[in-house]
């Protein structure tokens, strides 16, 4: 570990590794600092993503694909299953292998990486961020950088230290818990299952994502407001006891998913935020793998260019670049989320009944939202923007 780099990336998840790689490929020196002992662990993720979302960042390889997805299945509060074929291929990743590969790609592009490196403060030069303070294996160090990229996840504090408002209202985060379970015998390996309803996951949803064989990620997220009364863990255990009393639980993870549009400010002199730290997750689905890598790639490239051209102010153009690429879209996804957020069990049952009348070949996700938001003309326009225009 040297005392000076062009760029320091805090956090070695997908957003951090991609940001680091894109920057290093431009020819600047990059250091990645990961607080945990290993890249890729623990996996706080349901691991679902799409081919389209990740193909630009990594060659698709069976070593990190646990299941290939073609269908979406909506399970109503009464247990009715509505299957919808997806118009693009999805994957359930093995994030441990996936994250490791992304970090290797960053290393191959020239990045230095250290694990067990806990960043606990920032260095400033006047008002500009000028480096980080790190506790590395018990030794406190200060390292200078022209740009710091905060990729430190949902628990991000790096942005806060730079004076950026990153904390989220507790109602806008979904509290999640997930088991990776074995002996899940009633699911298809190519289908994502979503249970909706107040009894399953108020303000959120319960997912069952196949992991190959008879393994699956079974988890749920509840809104912070709902969590005030009953925790995500209680909801999940109720479901498991009822539906899968005989499964073996191979992994248990907790986590928070920001369900909001991206932070208003994700760049300041000498620093940018990428991935969950910037709240770049899709506010409707909670998915953040692809969007985090997109944010990372844009941020890494702009950071490197600002350094190489000696134009520190260019770094701030990252905000607009993100906004144009995905940020504005996430605002629309957030509108849809708010539209269905307060759905009662009755609403979901009605929706499932309406969908069941549509022949399988004619069902689509866009069509599902059209039915769900039939009485909300303003949101129907948003549905059209997201699902019916290229």
């Amino acid at each position: 570990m040297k005392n000076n780099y062009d760029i320091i990336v805090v956090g070695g998840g997908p957003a951090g590794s991609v940001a680091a790689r894109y920057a290093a490929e431009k020819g600047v020196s990059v250091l990645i600092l990961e607080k945990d002992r290993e890249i890729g662990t623990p996996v706080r993720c349901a691991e679902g993503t799409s081919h389209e979302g990740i193909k630009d960042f990594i060659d698709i390889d069976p070593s990190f694909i646990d299941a290939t997805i073609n269908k979406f299945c909506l399970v109503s509060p009464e247990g009715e299953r509505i299957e919808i074929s997806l118009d693009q291929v999805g994957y359930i990743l093995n994030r441990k292998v996936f994250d490791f590969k992304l970090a290797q790609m960053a290393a191959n592009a020239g990045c230095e990486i250290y694990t067990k490196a806990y960043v606990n403060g920032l260095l400033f030069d006047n008002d500009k961020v000028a480096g980080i303070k790190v506790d590395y294996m018990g030794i406190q160090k200060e390292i200078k950088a022209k740009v710091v990229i905060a990729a430190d996840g949902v628990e991000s504090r790096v942005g806060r230290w730079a004076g950026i408002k990153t904390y989220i209202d507790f109602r806008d985060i979904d509290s999640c818990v997930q088991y990776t379970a074995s002996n899940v015998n009633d699911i298809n390996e190519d289908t994502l299952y979503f249970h909706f309803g107040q009894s399953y996951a108020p303000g959120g949803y319960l997912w069952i994502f196949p992991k190959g064989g008879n393994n699956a990620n079974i988890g749920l997220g509840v809104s912070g407001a709902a969590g005030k009364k009953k925790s995500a863990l209680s909801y999940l255990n109720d479901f498991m006891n009822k539906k899968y009393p005989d499964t073996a639980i191979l992994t248990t993870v907790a986590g928070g998913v920001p369900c909001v549009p991206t932070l208003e400010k994700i760049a300041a002199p000498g620093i940018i935020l990428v991935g969950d730290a910037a709240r770049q997750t899709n506010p409707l689905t909670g998915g953040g793998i692809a969007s985090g890598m997109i944010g990372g790639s844009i941020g890494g490239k702009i950071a490197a260019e600002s350094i190489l051209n000696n134009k520190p102010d260019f770094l701030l153009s990252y905000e607009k670049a993100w906004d144009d690429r995905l940020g504005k879209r996430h605002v629309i996804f957030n509108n849809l989320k708010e539209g269905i957020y307060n759905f009662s069990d009755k609403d979901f049952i009605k929706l499932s009944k309406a969908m069941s009348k549509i022949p399988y070949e004619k069902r689509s996700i866009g069509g599902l939202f059209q039915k769900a938001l039939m009485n909300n003309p303003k949101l129907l326009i948003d549905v059209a923007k997201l699902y019916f225009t290229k």
Partner: protein
Amino acid sequence: MLMIEITPNKCDYCGTCVSICPEDAIELKEADITISEELCTNCSKCVWSCPIEVLKFNKEGVK
């Protein structure tokens, strides 16, 4: 007086509480979580958002 209690050996170190803490009072390392008595206002948002009930409100105060 700090009134947010951390149940020993239960935390998964997921950081949900860190993201919603308005005061930046919670510090999370790889397998270590602490709440700053100086910064914490006992607002309890962390208690409500903890996915696995690690944090509890204790009106008697915690040491």
